[in-house]
Every structure is written in structure tokens, then in C-alpha cells.
């Protein structure tokens, strides 16, 4: 099934490693029942980087084992606050 991945700030580099693109957004075909954790593994985001990361599905926070549905957008955001 097709889903969208978006990444911001320093997390964009993990998308760039997967695709030759200048965009921070890609579409990928994944197996049914894939979870957030599977996407993290696909992008090869190291555990250390995850400490600084908020992950959203369609704008909302979920646990790592949350299943992704067709057409969902998984968003990787760097920790932010203040300013």
C-alpha cells in the first residue's frame, strides 16, 4: 500500500539517503500492517536521533507499534519548543 513520508530539519537527510530527491517528502509502497517502527527501520534513523524526534501520523502522535493505513502521512519532526 502507498503511504507518504515527510521529514523536517536534520531528519530530512534520511529521506535523501533513500531517494535522489531535493524534496522532504516521498511516497513509498509498504506492506500491510506495517508500523511506525517499520518506517523508522526503513529510513535507518539511529536510536540516538530518535531522542530528538517527534513522529506523527496525519498530524497525531502514536506509539511505535501503531499500524499505518493506506494513504497515511508519517511525519518526522525535530524536537522544537520556545522561540
Amino acid at each position: 500500500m502507498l503511504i507518504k513520508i515527510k521529514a523536517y530539519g536534520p531528519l530530512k537527510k534520511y529521506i535523501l539517503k533513500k531517494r535522489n530527491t531535493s524534496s522532504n517528502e516521498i511516497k513509498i509502497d509498504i506492506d500491510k500492517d506495517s508500523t511506525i517502527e517499520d518506517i523508522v527501520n526503513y529510513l535507518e534513523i539511529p536510536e540516538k536521533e530518535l531522542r530528538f524526534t517527534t513522529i506523527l501520523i496525519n498530524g497525531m502522535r502514536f506509539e511505535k507499534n501503531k499500524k499505518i493505513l493506506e494513504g497515511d502521512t508519517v511525519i518526522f519532526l525535530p524536537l522544537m519548543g520556545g522561540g
Partner: protein
Amino acid sequence: MDGINGKILKIHLGNKSYEIEDKDENFYRKYIGGRGIALYYMHKEISDNIDAFSPKNLLIFAAGLLTGVPGPAIPRYTVCAKSPLTDGFGESEAGGYWGPELKRAGFDAIIIKGKAEKPLYLFVKDGKVEFKEAKNIWGKETGEVEDIIKEELGDNKIKIAQIGPGGENMVRYANITNELRHYNGRTGLGGVMGSKNLKAIAVRGTKKLKLANRDKVVEIARWAAKEGMENPLADLLHKIGTPATVMGNNEAGALPTRNWQKGYYEDAEKISGETMQETIGQSPEGCFACPVRCKRKVKVEEKDIKVDPRYGGPEYETIAAMGSLLEINDLRIIAKANELCNRYTIDTISTGMTIAFAMECYEKGLLTKEETDGLELKFGNSKVVLSLIKKIAKRKGIGDLLAEGSLRAAKELGGQAKRYVYQVKGQELPMHDPRVKTGVGLQYALADYGADHMKAAHDSFYEKDDSYGTLTTKALGIYSHVKPESTSEDKVRLFKVLDLYWSLLDMLGACHFGFVPRGAVSIEQLMQLISASTGVYISLYELMQGAERATDMARIFNIKAGFTSQDDQLPEIFFTHFNNGPLKDKGAINKEKFKKAIKLRYEMMGWNESGVPRRSKITELGLDWINFEQ
């Protein structure tokens, strides 16, 4: 004790005289710096119920305990006064170079008393003070003033804190600019400066601050410049700065849009931090001895619009307050709005929020074209924004009403207008929606100087057990995560501690962006910096108690000014769901749970059910000397 001067400068503007008060080690251990020192003098010398613009108000410029120490990210200092915006305790920090220069000039704080008969500015150099006539600079914009004072004093190295026309005209949210780019931005302290006929304070020191162990300070500074800058938080702050938050908040459905009517802005990408850096952005700038260099600088040179880079560039707050909040999708206009606010010294958050309020009133027919000097105050109408900023700063036409701030303006307009004001204690909300981070909401409601986004770390730093915040602040007794949208008892405990820790950083002169959990430098390194600077061992317990002492002093100041627990509230809108975006029909904070959380926080603080510090707590903190009847 090293790292400080032990000297407080008291200025009497009325008769152009000054005195110097010596303070001992115990004073600094007890009140630390910044708001601690300011509140000490405010309780001693401000009588109850004075008007913020009265000569009886004090205006206090106070460095932190570490300000000026050449360690990483400790450039900040605090200005305090009774606030003309909240009518309670007013406080605002600024980075840059002014605070460190004040320390080098031989003082830890300046207490301004009274009112000058005619406009003047102060020149403080190496322990001495000159009162200089300001006739030729009164009425002028900040850039020009900066040039004239530097030329007049014949020294390019002086650092200047000053007000523009917005401060002179006592806009209730006027601010103070330092070297044109660093702001004591909130609570209207620039208006207090204007009410005192004080245009600027120029400082210059030629002596080095005496440190107990300079080598250790340098060692930590070197670590921060190398290893510290490899931290993703520092790296992103350097490359994109706070504007990186635009897309994050929008993706989460919580970017304040159209005066909080919406949480998702379709044009967010046009005003994002990334877009700004790629289009009008220049190399970032920084503050004294800080390796992060997060301050934006922008330049626009087009036929119809020019933005001067010497006034810096918009932070996230400004981009949202002048952009999505007004539905303006043109970064050039936002950058120009930022520049104008900085020329006139008015706070960009309160300015954007008050304009947004006026736009919604116009939309709802509560303000007519006749009342707005013929301006069409429609959301998205970028032309009127720049005109309104000038009118506000000069208190001309509709600007005179808006210069009062959104709450006072709504009261003046009457009827339904109050529904479109989003404030706590009279201060307009910053650009973070508490529905997606309730800890920020608790801090908005409880902040002693009105709604503010820098009263604690934000919830997302603690969303998992292995989040950076949870991992790095164990020394504060934080061992596990709390979900951002939760209003549980755990959330109350977490934010009680974060509140005190954040206040402590302010009182030390430390920037939140340098230290954990928002930056790279650890609590252990912070403690090492304190002992290396002062040469004495001050424990984290003592420091946190110092932060609590200042918090209770601010609380008592507000209670004496007439505040009650009724003022510890969030605007109603946050107890309703979002109207659009990914969180449409979701997100409302449970009002009853939120109220309970506030009551629990009172209890944890040793305050009674009405939020009044109990006599036992006052005694514990050694504040019996404050004249306060319960």
C-alpha cells in the same frame, strides 16, 4: 565571591544622582540574579497599587549570576518593573552583549528610580555614571539613536539598551532593544522606560570579570563549541533557528492561524523557516560567547520593499504572529513588520496579536472602516499591517486604541469584542497552542508575568522515556515521560520542576537554548560553571530553592497588586476542539482536569487553595521580611 561585582547601582532620575550599594555573598546565594535581585528591590521599594507609568515605579536591569562569564550561552540579563500591560510583576530577558558589558562596567544591576524632568540617557562606564541630555535623540528610531550615541561618546564598543518611539509613547507592550537586535520583548518594559523620560542606557567596561577558575570556564566553552554543536538541537538552531518551528507546529495542526480560529495554515510553507533561510536569510548572528548563533538576519532589497538587516530577522514567534495569525503569506511583509517593530520598539507578539484581534473585530462588524481610519482590517491584507504598526507606535488614530493591548482595547469596544482576545493576566498569548502541549498551557495560566512560552521546556521534550529531555534532566528528579496532551498529576509534577529550573536559568543569565533539555550543555557542566566562576560551592538544592523564592516573591507581588486565582486561567478556546487541519474536531483540553491541575500545582508549591503562599512556605524561604498580610 568571584564572577560578580557585589555592587548595585541606584539611579535617581529626578535629581540626576546615583548611589552604589554593596552586597555580600549571602545576598547572591539567596537572590541569585535577574528576577531574584529585581523582586528584592521591588518588594522593598514599590508601594502597593501604584500605576506602572508612575514615577514611583522602579525599572530594574539585573544581570544573572553568571552573565558575562565567557562560558557557553550565558549572555542574558533581565529587566523588571511593574508591568503596564498586566498591572502586575513584569519581566523580560534579553541576550546579546549588554548584560555582559554591564558586569564589566562594574555593576550587577541598575535600579532606576523616579522620572527625569527632561529626556536623558545614561552612560555607565567603569563604575561611574553620566547623565546625558537626550533632546536630540528623543523621537528618533532605534538605528539612528544607536549611531548618534556611539558617535557622541566616541566609542564603538559601548553597548546600548534603548527605546524607540513606541516606548516614548508608552505603548503598553513597548519593549527595549539591545544593540538593535536583542529584546527584552515582553510585558511593556519599554513603556516604563518611556514614562521615566529615559531614552537609553549605554554601558562600557574595560575590566575583565574576575573568575575563580577561568581555565575551567574556557574548557566548558570549548566543549560546547565542538561537541555541543554536534547536538541536533544546537545544529538546527544555528541553521534555521526558531523559525524551524513553523512547519512542525503546522504539521501538528497547531500553528495559530486567523486569530486562533484555525490551527492549520495552508500557506505555511511560504513562511517557513526553511523558505526564509533560502530566500531572504543571511548568515545567522549570535550573542556573547555563545557558539549556537541562532539569531536570524534577513535582507530584502526590492523596488517596493526594503528590509534592513541591521535589525536582525524574525524569530518563530514573529513569523507566526505577523504571518499565519493574520493570514499573511509573504515573508517580505513579515520581515518588514519585524523591522518596523524593532525600529519603534514594540513587541512583535503583542503587536501581531492585537492586530489579529482588531481584524477579527472588523470581520465581525465590531470595528468599522470609520473607526479604523479607513483601513480595511481584513485577514490577509498585508498593506494595512505595516500602517497599523506605525500608528500603534505613534498612538495615531486607531493605533492609540491598539497601543493599549488587546484586552484593554476589547473593554473599550465593549460587547462581544472580549471573545476575540487571547490573553492571560492581560498579556497576549505567544504562538504555541496549549491543546497539543498542556504543560505550556499550565505555564501560560500560572506565569507570574502573563502568558509566556519561555516559562518551561515544552512537553515534547518529555514525550518518551528515551526523549532527550527525560534523559538529560534526571538531576532534577525527572525519571519518566509524560504525554504532551496529558493533564495528569505527573504533568503537574513535571512542570512544577521545569518551571523552577527555567526560572533558575533566567536568574543565572543562561539561555534556555544552550542548556539541557533545550540545548547541549548539561546540568553537571552548569554546576561546574557556577563554581568555576564564583569560587564557592553552591548546590543545586540552594539554586532551585532560590528559584522558588523568586517565584513566591513574584506571586506575592501580584497578589498585593490585586491578582487572584481567577487570573490563573486559560482562554476558553482551548477547552474546545480545533476547527480545521489534522486535529479537526479533536484536541480540546478537559476544563475540569485543567482546573484540578492548577489546584494541585498550588498545593505542590505550598500555596493555599486560592493560590496564596502559606505562611509556613514564606518562612521556609526566608521571606518573612516582606510586608504581606494573608
